[in-house]
């Protein structure tokens, strides 16, 4: 209570600050970070497994990245876009068969045991490679991890593996688990998956299902004067409309991952004390794509796929569905990726007449009722935007005489229908571009993925040229030559359209303006928040 009492001294001090602010504005605005305080964050889902080393997905990272740290984090300023975390330096060998990590000294796990190279070796060989959704691809040739001393880990690969790829994979794929907790147990069923133990700035305190997660300050954190917050509370608010209300009522301080619907941003940005931040998702670009089942004879015809690409008004999608918070896509690499993107690919301008002409040419003339053929369209249910795009695509196809029948499913049924049963003609999917095409992008067009692997090529597409290109890039060590191969990859994909890239989008953070150091790295929402603080 005493904090809120107005004293004469307080008023005088306040007046002095006001005076000073008119005289020296820059001095007042350069605020000194303050320690302490609680950050309340809106969470829209409660992942069952919170182990980021097994489930490398943003829903898991959102909570667990504060507890379990990777070897390096993405950074706006750092060399190669990285800043060190548990590793202080990394170096690839000439032959591409080994990578040497120097590890941070004086780091302890939340249970007090020291962090050593044995933990890294264990995580890499026992978890990332065999169990992790993305690590299975990137670390498939990892043979051994040597630990010459407690703070050096040398990764040995059976086949040359591009260092560029390993580097790009560090932030998302290399969460390090404590060996002494997991060794000898069934890793996938270890209780620590629900209450993670890590080295991060916050310790996992409790989870009340349906209510909140609580993380508490790790007093023994290696970062100097970090973390700044006392605790982070994730309030579970599954209803998207509720997040905006909770922010306005000052019940939560921050809502990330576009928890506030895009349509509400314009209104909420005018509410005093609330800021809309579009930065901080550069390394988490989502792609809106149309997956195509090439088993359908109509869709196996390139002309039909080109017609569909011409029938989609990408500008409309960006303007109306994403309300401007997205970019039109030209191919499988998003425009905001500085390393790999090339604009030099065949484009498909919105052109209904051309689409109609292509369909006529392909031998599917309009029938008496104006229809050519009908398709089953399955929009992914994960985002409002994917569902809305499904509704839009149905209309866009109707304009060129293709009847699309929408089929809505829940997440589990959608994944089964598309990725296991192949019971679709077209599907709308939101894969993530994770800083390197080899991590989770090439798998969307490469042939040979076994049935049931989600977010992989399950459309029965097979193109020997593209497969060869992907294989060659996977073993090209020179970063420049490898990038060139991915330029070619983008051209080939845009030319042959195994899938259609429509738009790329990042998310929006809405925060109260008392929260400081928001969005100061390209994966901010899923980084460790050690330097985040709250002004009181």
């Amino acid at each position, binding site marked *: 209570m005493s904090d809120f009492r107005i004293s004469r001294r307080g008023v005088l001090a306040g007046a002095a600050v006001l005076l000073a602010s008119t005289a020296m504005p820059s001095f007042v605005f350069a605020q000194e970070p303050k320690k302490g305080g609680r950050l309340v964050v809106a969470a829209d889902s409660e992942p069952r497994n919170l182990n980021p080393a097994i489930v490398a997905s943003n829903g898991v990272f959102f909570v667990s990245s504060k507890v379990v740290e990777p070897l390096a984090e993405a950074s706006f300023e750092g060399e190669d876009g990285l800043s060190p975390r548990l590793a202080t330096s990394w170096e690839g060998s000439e032959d591409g068969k080994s990578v040497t990590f120097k590890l941070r000294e004086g780091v302890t796990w939340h249970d007090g045991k020291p962090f050593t190279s044995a933990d890294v070796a264990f995580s890499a060989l026992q978890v990332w490679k065999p169990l992790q959704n993305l690590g299975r691809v990137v670390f498939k040739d990892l043979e051994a991890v040597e630990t010459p001393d407690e703070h050096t880990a040398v990764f040995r690969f059976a086949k040359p593996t591009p260092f560029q790829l390993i580097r790009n994979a560090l932030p998302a794929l290399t969460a390090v688990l404590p060996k002494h907790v997991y060794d000898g147990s069934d890793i996938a069923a270890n209780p620590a998956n629900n209450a993670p133990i890590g080295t991060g700035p916050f310790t996992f305190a409790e989870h009340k299902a349906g209510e909140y997660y609580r993380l508490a300050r790790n007093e023994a954190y290696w970062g100097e004067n970090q973390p700044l917050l006392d605790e982070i509370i994730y309030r579970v608010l599954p209803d*998207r*409309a509720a997040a*905006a209300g909770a922010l306005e009522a000052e019940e939560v301080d921050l809502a990330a991952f576009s928890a506030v*619907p895009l*349509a*509400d941003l*314009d*209104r909420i940005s005018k509410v005093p004390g609330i800021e809309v931040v579009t930065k901080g998702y550069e390394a988490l670009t989502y792609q809106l794509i149309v997956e195509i089942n090439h088993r359908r004879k109509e869709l196996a015809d390139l002309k039909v796929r080109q017609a569909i690409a011409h029938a989609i008004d990408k500008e409309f999608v960006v303007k*109306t*569905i994403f309300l401007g918070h997205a970019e039109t896509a030209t191919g499988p690499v998003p425009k905001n990726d500085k390393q790999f993107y090339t604009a030099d690919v065949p484009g498909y301008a919105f052109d209904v007449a051309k689409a109609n002409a292509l369909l006529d040419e392909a031998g599917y003339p309009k029938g008496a009722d104006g229809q050519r053929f009908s398709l089953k369209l399955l929009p992914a*249910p994960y985002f*409002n935007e994917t*569902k*809305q795009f*499904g*509704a*839009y695509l*149905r*209309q866009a196809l*109707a304009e060129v005489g293709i009847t699309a*029948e*929408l*089929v*809505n*499913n*829940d997440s589990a*049924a959608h994944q089964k229908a598309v990725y296991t049963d192949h019971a679709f003609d077209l599907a709308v999917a939101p894969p993530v571009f994770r800083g390197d095409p080899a991590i989770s992008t090439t798998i969307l067009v490469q042939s040979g993925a076994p049935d049931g692997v989600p977010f992989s090529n399950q459309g029965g597409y097979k193109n020997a040229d593209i497969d060869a290109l992907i294989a060659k890039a996977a073993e090209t060590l020179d970063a420049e030559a490898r990038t060139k191969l991915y330029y070619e990859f983008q051209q080939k994909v845009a030319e042959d359209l195994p899938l259609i890239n429509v738009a790329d989008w990042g998310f929006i953070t809405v925060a109260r303006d008392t929260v400081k150091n928001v969005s100061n790295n390209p994966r901010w929402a899923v980084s460790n928040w050690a330097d985040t603080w709250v002004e009181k």
Partner: protein
Amino acid sequence: MSRLFLRSPEAVAGTIILALLVAMALAAPWLFPRDPLAIAGPAMLPPFQDWTIPLGTDRLGRDVLSGLFHGARTSLAVGLAAAATSIVVGVLVGTIAGFAGGWVDEVLMRVTDAFQTVPGFLLALAFVSVAGPSLGVVVVAIALGAWTQPARITRAEVLSIRERDYVAGARVIGMHPAEIAFREVLPNALPPVLALSSVIVAAAVLTEAALSFLGLGDPNRVTWGGMIAEGRAVLRSAPFLSIVPGIALVLTVLGVYLVGEGAVEASAVKRGNA
């Protein structure tokens, strides 16, 4: 009967509302020949701005008025079909159970009990999420939870009717039991069930809207519940998108109830007079 019916003001109001709705549903394809899901103008146009799109457009630029008219078709079609299905099934089960008695009665009534113990909406949710959302599935899903009430009422009526003299007479002249059940007993057991029908239609319309609201309606058709769900994301900036179909839904349910009420009252007055 019809004179009595029209004497109550509720019944008249209900009839007018329902007549308007039916007219809307029937006129929809003539007034709005385009697909109501087609993009008709700029997105999120507020109402009364453009007179070719009087009620504005939704987040994709679809005409709200056209959606309202075509939605009336879906709502009424699903409501009536689901009510008809559940009444037919319910009456059949009730008549057989009541007339046959013995173990047939036991089995059928225990099955009815089993269905009654599960909340109807839950049953509908489960069924649609397993079978996949389409209009036919939604109708069956709603009927699944609604047939038990008519079944119980029919059985109760049949139990009393089957002891009447004319039924005994029919037995004596050697009519087939099935013929007695459906020719002699059933028609006399129907009136109380039909009085229940308005409640069932209203509940079916609401259940359909609730299913669509949860994204379990047929996505290839406009439904009022779907329109409300669509509008919910922008409730703060474009409330009309949820309010307009919401009002339509309220009026429909109100109309059906009022008509039902009027019918029950009229029949009560008639019985009292007789």
